[in-house]
Structures are given as structure tokens and as C-alpha cells.
């Protein structure tokens, strides 16, 4: 493929208010590095598509907002002159053209000559493993095949930026997994600046160099998947990526005290709730440091390499414990847990 030729994208106080008064995006500053894959992750209606459409040039930011591609201010430039590739959840393939004609479309519009066009289309089809479908009509393709065609069509003209809006959402779980791996390989090999929208955290973790978690029209947190997972800035972010336990506590004389909970604590206690990941709690092994939580097992699921426990601490929501301990657990058993102090998180929001 071509050399890495991604460009950085910058949003400057870009917000979006629709005609009916809906504030879909608060004024936002954001830089997407050249060649980076940034994933917008968030629940339905949080403004992911709106942000993507502003980057694409399908929508204009509200007055005062600016969009930069490298050193070009493209705020007023319509999508057809931005040189972006786009992939939609609904595929949006041209029904009146064959697979090959769909893939060739961007090249044809750009007046790439016939011979080169054919070569490039063949290359794209091969890359997406759909060479044998070249002359099919679109309505003769499966969902996965359609999305492959859509990807091939988007990257064939070698865009500066690739934009994908929930490209895998319409597919079944197994196919989603396969295509996710393929898209990952594709994005690594292209090294093109990519914005990827999804509400699936596994997809976001797998594909994103960085993830921007969105909430109600603003970016709640942006960072690498590791940062977001290990240091979520709020309960919202924590809840969106991976599973998270929440326990109400109060600081009391060098301890955090809650229902079934007694944790030695000497730092400040910035809130009334602590959070921790299911894999950070473990079954107390009887060693010197005392157990910090005690409860009763509500359910235990043996999943081969680990067991998933739901533990009732007496009050509040049950917590989830992921343990690799090789003993058997039964509902109703009492259980004692330990939790390293450094794994305790305090949600700020």
C-alpha cells in the first residue's frame, strides 16, 4: 500500500445545535494525530455520529467552531472536496452498480484512467477477500460481504481520513469478531487517520489507539484503552468500559467502612463510593493481611479459566468477583475477599 500519509485532524470549539434546538455536541476541542485511530464510544444519542459528520463535512459546526485537516481550515469545505473515505452502518452501497463498479466509483469520479482503475479495484477486492464477488449485484451479497465492499469502496481512492460509523453493528457476533480483526489489520497497514464510531466497548478497546468516551454531547474522557480502563475519570466512563463494582463507604478512623466492608485506608476519601474491577478483588487466602470484605455468594458461574461470582455484601448492589481460584463455589457460601488498596478508584462524578 501507499506510505503512511495520514494527516492530523483538529476540532476547535466545534459544537452542533440542530434547527429544533437539540444540542447534539457541546463546543469541543479535540486533536486526532496523523495516522491514529480514534474511537468515539458512548451510548445511543450521545453525539458520536454528529461529531463524525462534522469531521466528514456532512454537517457544519455551529458558528465559531472550526475543523482543521493538517494546516488546512476545512470548515467550509464540503465533503466531496475533503478527500475522506466513509463507511456507514447501513453500508449505503449503490444498488444500481456491481460490486466492482461500487469500488471503482471514487476513482471514476476522480477521473483515474481505466487501466489504473481496474488494477486498483482488483487490489482492493483481493485485500478484502471478495475478488470472486466482483460482478455480483449488491442484493446478492450477505451483510458481511456488503460491509467488505463498503470498506473497499471507501479506501480505494486513498483518502486522507477514514471515517466509520458503527460499521459492524448490523452484523452477527461471530462475523463482527472476524471483521473487527480484519479492520484492525487494515487500519494498521494503511496508517491512515481514522475515526471510528461504536457503542461496543470490545470493538473500541481492540481498534482504538485512543478512545474518546462520550456522554451527552461532550467528551467525558479521552485516552488510550489502558488509561481509560485503569483510570476512568468518572463512574460513567468506568461503567461503559468493562465491568465495575460500586460500594458505598464512609471514612472512619483509618478505615473505609461499608456494609460487609472494612478497608484500611490512610489517604483522603474524596467521595462516598469506591469502585473496583471484578478481576482486582480476590478470594482471601488466609495470609497475614486481613480480609477487607465479607459476603455471601448469590451465584457462581464456572467459565473454564475463571469463575464469576456474584457476592452480596449485605446492602447495596451485589459485587462481581472474577477469580481464578481452583476451588468450587456454591451459592449461599460465605466468602472473604481481599482488595489491594491501589486498585481502589474514586469516581469524581
Amino acid at each position, binding site marked *: 500500500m501507499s506510505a503512511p500519509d495520514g494527516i492530523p485532524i483538529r476540532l476547535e470549539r466545534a459544537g452542533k445545535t440542530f434547527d429544533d434546538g437539540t444540542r447534539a455536541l457541546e463546543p469541543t476541542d479535540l486533536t486526532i494525530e496523523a495516522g491514529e485511530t480514534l474511537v468515539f464510544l458512548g451510548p445511543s444519542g450521545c453525539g458520536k455520529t454528529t461529531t463524525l459528520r462534522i469531521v466528514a463535512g456532512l454537517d457544519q459546526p455551529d458558528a465559531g467552531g472550526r475543523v482543521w485537516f493538517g494546516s488546512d481550515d476545512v470548515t467550509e469545505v464540503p465533503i*466531496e472536496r475533503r478527500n475522506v473515505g466513509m463507511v*456507514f452502518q447501513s453500508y*449505503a452501497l449503490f*444498488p*444500481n452498480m456491481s460490486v466492482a463498479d461500487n469500488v471503482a466509483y*471514487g476513482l471514476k*469520479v476522480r477521473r483515474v484512467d481505466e487501466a489504473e482503475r481496474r488494477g486498483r479495484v482488483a487490489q482492493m477486492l483481493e485485500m478484502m477477500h471478495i475478488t470472486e464477488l466482483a460482478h455480483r449485484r*449488491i*442484493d446478492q451479497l450477505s451483510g458481511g460481504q456488503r460491509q467488505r465492499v463498503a470498506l473497499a*469502496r471507501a479506501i480505494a481512492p486513498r483518502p486522507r481520513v477514514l471515517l466509520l460509523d458503527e460499521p459492524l453493528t448490523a452484523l452477527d457476533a461471530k462475523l463482527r469478531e472476524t471483521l473487527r480483526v480484519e479492520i484492525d489489520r487494515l487500519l494498521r497497514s494503511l496508517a491512515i487517520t481514522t475515526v471510528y464510531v461504536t457503542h461496543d466497548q470490545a470493538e473500541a478497546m481492540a481498534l482504538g489507539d485512543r478512545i474518546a468516551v462520550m456522554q451527552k454531547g461532550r467528551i467525558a474522557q479521552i485516552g488510550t484503552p489502558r488509561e481509560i480502563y485503569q483510570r476512568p475519570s468518572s463512574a460513567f466512563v468506568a461503567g461503559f468500559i468493562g465491568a465495575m463494582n460500586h460500594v458505598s463507604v464512609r471514612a472512619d478512623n483509618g478505615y473505609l467502612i461499608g456494609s460487609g466492608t472494612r478497608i484500611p485506608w490512610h489517604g483522603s476519601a474524596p467521595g462516598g463510593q469506591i469502585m473496583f474491577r471484578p478481576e482486582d478483588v480476590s478470594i482471601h487466602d488466609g495470609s497475614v493481611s486481613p480480609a477487607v470484605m465479607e459476603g455471601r455468594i448469590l451465584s457462581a458461574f464456572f467459565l473454564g479459566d475463571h469463575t464469576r461470582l456474584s457476592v452480596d455484601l449485605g446492602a447495596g448492589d451485589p459485587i462481581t468477583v472474577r477469580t481464578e481460584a481452583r476451588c468450587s463455589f456454591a451459592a449461599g457460601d460465605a466468602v472473604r475477599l481481599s482488595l489491594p488498596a491501589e486498585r481502589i478508584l474514586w469516581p469524581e462524578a
Partner: protein
Amino acid sequence: MGGRERLLLLALMAPAAIVFAAFFLLPLARLFVIGGTGPTGWSAYLAIVTDARYFRSLVSTVLLSASVTAATLVISGIAGVFLERNRFRGRALVTAMLTLPLAFPGVVIGFMVIMLAGRQGLIPEITDALFNERLVFAYSMAGLFMGYVYFSIPRTILTVMASAEKLDPRLEEAARSLGARPWRVVADVIVPGLKPAFISAGAICFATAMGAFGTAFTLATRINVLPMVIYTEFTLQANLVMASALSFVLGAITWAALALARSFAGSSVAAAG
């Protein structure tokens, strides 16, 4: 399908079959036979192509209908998509006005053409004031063309609007993202998307123009469209044979155009996702 169901189906089809036979098949067959019972026998049909008067009328009717269809599709295509895409004050009123001619018989349309382009009409007044020459075209093919386009627009525009509503805006966005300028989007996405509507509306438009009589009759008995010729042969010349032969051919051409359109529409519908 069981025998009982088949029987039931036949019973349900019976009324349609009876009407079809009584009001269509039988008269048509009779028309066809009468066409061949003149002093010259079956060569009455031949006369349609050999007799210059009939042939010219046949050709000009087909040409008129084809150009009316083309003009109507262009006008309604643009207006229909525009009306479907834009929400503005007075939109409902514009739509209602554009579809008004549906309520008028051909005679009224003829009057309107005369008002506009007849001897005392508006257009001659204007051209008189501007160029000192009265442009009168109501009583010619041009007047007929105008009238036919006018009454063909409503049906076509409604069909186009219904079809434009179903166009997937993502397709247009996809084309634009690939670099297509607006006119390319129209040519590559909108027109193909509206093709089934264009074909079905165009077929009806063509058929209606082929058979329309009231407007032509109002404008002038001199205009040589096929329905006028049939009327003249039948009432003035009492040439029942020729009138029958012409009628049959008129029907056959129109039917063929509709069938052709249907087969096109069928294949294009199948091709659409």
C-alpha cells in the same frame, strides 16, 4: 395448492374476468374484425402505413406523446424532488396547485390553452407589446403539447414525490464522500433511484397523451392527432372500417408501450437492493 383453493380462486376471479371479457375483449375483437371488413378487406390496416394522411397522423401522435412524456418527466422530476426535499411555508399550497389539473377534463385544459396562447390570449398580447407581433400557437401541435404537459404533470409529480421520499439519503452522502459533485450525485444516485417511478409514470403519461381527445377537439379540428382522425373518419366520413382499424392500432401501440415499460421497470426493480 389444493383443488378446493384453486376453485375458490377461480370463483374470486370470475367478476373481473366477466367485466374484462364484456367490456374489453369482445369489443376489441369486434373492432379488429370490423377493421378488416371494408371494401378493401384487411388492407385497411395496410392503409395506415401506405396512406400518407393516416401515417403522418400516426407518426405525429407518437412523436407528440413521446415529447410530452419527456418534458413532463423532466419538469416533474425536478419539481417532485424539490418539493419532497424542502419544507417551506406554502409548500402544501404549491403541491395542491400543481396537482389541480387532475380535476379538469380535457376540454377545460383546451380552454386554458386558448386563454393563454389563443388569438385573444395572454402570450400574443405580451409578444405584441414587446415585438409587435402576435405569437398565436394554441391551435397547433405546440398548443396541444402545452396542454398535455400541463395535465400530465400532476400524476407524474405525485409518483415522483412518493418515490423521492424513499430515496436513501446515505447513498447520496456515500457518493459525495467518494468525491461526487452535486450533478454527479443526481446522475448516479437520484435518477437511478427514481427510475422505476419515471418508467411507470412515463408509461401512463405516454398512454394518456396517445389517447387524449378533449383538448385536441377544443383547440381545433385541424390538429391531426390519431384520436381526432378516428373521430373524423367515424362521424364525418362514416368510414367505420378505417376508424376501427385506426382505433385498434392506437390501442396496440399504447399497450405495447405500457408492456415495454413494465418489463423495464421489472428488471430495474429487481436490480435495486
